[in-house]
């Protein structure tokens, strides 16, 4: 992409405001100052959302299940999946921090239909309330309250909370931070109690058995399950794309020049929102130094918070699952079956019988907590993403304002969710998650391609990704799409 960064004839400051960065066919981005990166490596960043969304079924159920079925050696695929996601996270952050735009806007700059593709996929994948079921089912185990009741109450609660919030980002960050903090502390402590060095050695050494695939894994019954689990290693589906919205709304990098989204009750106070992002002067060494600071900041988040917590939670849950099988070998049979609720209950029961009922309840409590985190994060992120695309690219939508659009999508997905829970497909909650997995995996391959295009064509040369980063993202596209289509053509099954 060419630039009209014409250097100012004189060094007078106002000239700077008129320079723009042309990216794609959309409105050019004005050149503005990049803010200073946070001074020290601080622990709280928008990564909290990615962690909240990402630590879910893959970590607590899918991977422990695969380890029990095929042995710890299968975990090399998990290592690849999560590491890949850490690089994707860094690359998503590159565009969002450099421009203050979401990756959806970046996709629209490359080719508008690409953005509409994600708009449609998001609706197809995320309006189903399937993700609520596991947490609500765990809650039912503890309290006896039917899961549909909990799920519907949860949906309404989420809607009310986000509608009343003055500035949505702050509220969500605080709530999720405490929940994640409790989850991490609790998981560490549970793992410290029930696990042993032996379990952890096999779990970790299994991560380096690259290429291991037992014959039974290469079957129509199990290969699709493995593909699904790879897609669910870390954040799945479009969660990484939504992360760019959180970066923008938390004011990371050039996101500082964008206003925040408010709850519906406070929509009237919303500031005027520009329909394009900004760019900083990449020719200025001082600006580039600040950029390096931002990259360090996000790299720390990616490695420690994202990679570290995801690994910790999965290792812990795998250790717990191994302990459960040791205690009660019948758990293995329950886990082999396709019913997630039965498997989780069996794991909880095994842990309870060896220790106390407290342990079983705590285990289910974690599943419920993970479910709650995912629900809060998913509903907010979905509405944020759809509102962003609608606001910027549907004529006339700007009149409504971003906050109202956010509310429309939020309540739309909540009401649809309640209807589905009450009158929807009778084949149970697990069935919903399975259908979701195909589109979800396909979207992941597609966003890898989008990332390559956006970062290499829409950003100024000095801040484009390095070759090795492009190579890894390219590998990601092949990894997700390759496995998905291999599964489809070799076994005639999509994703398990």
């Amino acid at each position: 992409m060419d630039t009209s960064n014409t250097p100012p004839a004189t060094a007078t400051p106002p000239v700077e405001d008129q320079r723009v960065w042309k990216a794609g066919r959309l409105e050019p981005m004005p050149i503005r100052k990049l803010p200073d990166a946070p001074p020290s490596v601080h622990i709280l960043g928008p990564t909290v959302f990615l962690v909240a969304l990402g630590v879910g079924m893959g970590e607590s159920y899918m991977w422990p299940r695969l380890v029990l079925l095929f042995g710890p050696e299968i975990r090399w695929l998990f290592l690849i999946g999560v590491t890949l996601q850490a690089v994707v996270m860094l690359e998503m952050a590159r565009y969002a921090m450099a421009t203050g735009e979401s990756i959806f806007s970046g996709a629209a700059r490359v080719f508008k239909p690409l953005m509409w593709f994600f708009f449609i996929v998001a609706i197809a994948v995320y309006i189903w309330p399937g993700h609520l079921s596991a947490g609500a089912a765990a809650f039912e185990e503890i309290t006896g309250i039917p899961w549909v009741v909990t799920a519907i109450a949860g949906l309404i609660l989420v809607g009310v909370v986000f509608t009343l919030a003055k500035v949505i980002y702050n509220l969500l960050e605080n709530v999720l931070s405490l929940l994640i903090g409790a989850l991490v502390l609790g998981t560490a402590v549970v793992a410290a109690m029930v696990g042993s060095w032996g379990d952890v050695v096999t779990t970790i050494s299994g991560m380096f058995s690259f290429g291991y695939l037992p014959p039974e894994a290469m079957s129509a019954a199990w290969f699709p399950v493995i593909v699904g689990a790879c897609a669910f290693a870390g954040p799945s589906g479009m969660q990484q794309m939504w992360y760019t919205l959180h970066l923008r709304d938390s004011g990371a990098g050039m996101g500082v020049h964008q206003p925040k989204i408010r709850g519906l009750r406070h929509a009237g106070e919303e500031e005027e929102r520009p329909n394009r992002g900004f760019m900083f002067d990449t020719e200025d060494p001082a600006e580039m130094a600040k950029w390096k600071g931002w990259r360090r900041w996000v790299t720390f988040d990616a490695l420690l918070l994202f990679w570290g917590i995801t690994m910790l939670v999965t290792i812990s849950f795998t250790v717990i699952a191994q302990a459960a099988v040791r205690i009660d070998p019948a758990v293995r049979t329950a886990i082999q079956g396709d019913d997630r609720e039965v498997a989780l209950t069996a794991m909880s029961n095994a842990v309870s019988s060896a220790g106390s009922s407290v342990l079983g309840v705590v285990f289910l409590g974690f599943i419920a907590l993970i479910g709650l985190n995912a629900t809060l994060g998913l509903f907010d992120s979905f509405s944020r993403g759809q509102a962003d695309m609608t606001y910027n690219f549907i004529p006339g939508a700007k009149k409504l304002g971003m906050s109202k659009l956010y509310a429309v999508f939020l309540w739309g997905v909540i009401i649809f969710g309640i209807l589905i829970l009450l009158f929807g497909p009778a084949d149970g909650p697990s069935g919903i998650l399975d259908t979701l997995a195909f589109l979800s995996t396909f979207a992941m391959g597609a966003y890898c391609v989008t990332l390559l295009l956006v970062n290499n064509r829409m950003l100024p040369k000095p801040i484009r990704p390095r070759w090795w980063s492009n190579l890894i993202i390219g590998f990601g596209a092949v990894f997700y799409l390759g496995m998905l289509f291999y599964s489809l053509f070799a076994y005639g099954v999509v994703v398990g």
Partner: protein
Amino acid sequence: MTGRHSLELALPGASIGAVAGAMAGGLTLLAGQSAGMAGLAALALATPLALFGGLYGMLLGHGVFRPGTFGPIGLYWMAAFPVSRLAQEILVPTGGLAEGAGPFLAYQAMISLGFAIGFLWMHERIMPQWLVRRAGDNPLAGELLQKYLRFARIVRARKSARKGGR
């Protein structure tokens, strides 16, 4: 007086440690122990975790640690967490030492990094609120609050640069 001031800084960390320990204590009821043993198990872990958690807050107040940095606190818990678990296993054995002390400590040290992330995460949320309440009467708290404020000011300067920012 200085002692009391330091102790006040210990409160958030000690509370987080105690809650985490109590949570864990409930889980150590292996092989159908009585409620009394359960309480003892909870206490045996909650006490050392609360002590180490509190000590962290005091050291933070005296400038040994910097707010929000992970490396040093990771190392701190890598030593403190296994020691706490060992104390618990000695007081209320749950069979964790069956593989021997070496593997036990190594395993606990690994888990401690996760614990450190969770601890720091919670501490960074709670400590500033506590300092705001105590800064008036406690010079140590006031000093530490200034460190947090310096950081907050930089963040705010960033945010107020927003277009139409509040």
